């Protein structure tokens, strides 16, 4: 092992120990370690819209996911587009609607216990999404890309509130916003994916 690799491995171990330090009890630590997270990313047609620093929302999301997976190899599924819901290594081109209920059901089928949703719009059906969340039964954290006072943000807040998750409004229009989203997602992931 090179000096650089050894230093990097030591830093990962130290981070793992520091994160477990945040747990108030052994029961909490066990619960956190058993968490199986799945990141659900919206690739509906609206993700093709441009952002102020150039490129499109989907391009910014790709940067976020790439940065995230360098340190946290969390599985990622996209919803919308041609294939509707599928596990992906590379975020596909945006297209179509926002079948969030199918994405949540996909998470249930795959055995996830925690979902992190990144979306820029309202789902195809709110009631279907809420029903899917009930079937899922775990925590759903949401990052809404857009204004904090529109219907999409309000939906995300309700979905998170119903499932015991957190709702966040995020701006991926510039690099600072993209880094902030990456950090926000990392903060929700279990120690086990380090």
């Amino acid at each position, binding site marked *: 092992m090179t000096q650089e690799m050894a230093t990097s491995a030591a830093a990962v171990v130290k981070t793992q*120990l520091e994160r477990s330090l945040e747990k108030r009890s*052994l029961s909490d630590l066990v619960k956190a370690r058993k968490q199986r997270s799945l990141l659900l990313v919206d690739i509906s047609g609206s993700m093709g819209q441009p952002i102020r620093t150039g490129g499109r929302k989907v391009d910014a999301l790709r940067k976020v996911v790439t940065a995230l997976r360098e340190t946290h190899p969390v599985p990622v599924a996209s919803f919308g587009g041609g294939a509707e819901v599928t596990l992906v290594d590379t975020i596909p081109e945006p297209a179509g609607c926002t079948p969030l209920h199918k994405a949540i059901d996909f998470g249930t089928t795959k055995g996830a216990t925690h979902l992190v949703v990144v979306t820029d719009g309202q789902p195809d059906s709110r009631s279907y999404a809420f029903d899917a969340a009930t079937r899922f039964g775990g925590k759903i954290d949401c990052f809404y890309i857009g204004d904090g006072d529109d219907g999409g943000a309000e939906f995300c807040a309700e979905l998170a509130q119903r499932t015991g998750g957190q709702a966040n409004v995020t701006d991926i229009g510039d690099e600072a916003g993209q880094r902030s989203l990456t950090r926000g997602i990392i903060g929700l992931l279990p120690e086990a994916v380090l």
Partner: protein
Amino acid sequence: MALGSGPMLLQALATLEDALVAKADEGGVNQELERHFARYQKIKALALHPATGDNERKAALRQALCEAIRMVV
């Protein structure tokens, strides 16, 4: 150049922590184990805190390892 024993001891502590989680998951957590864990967390906090002096950090790390072994074995 080697990193020294410090990082290896931290690695050992992380491995023991993994074993502790596995044991707790299999056998459940009782109050006594939670009490030991709370003590272990305090000692570990001292071992990891950047303001802790060298000698104190080494002593805390040794003690944390002993506490972790007691909980796991």
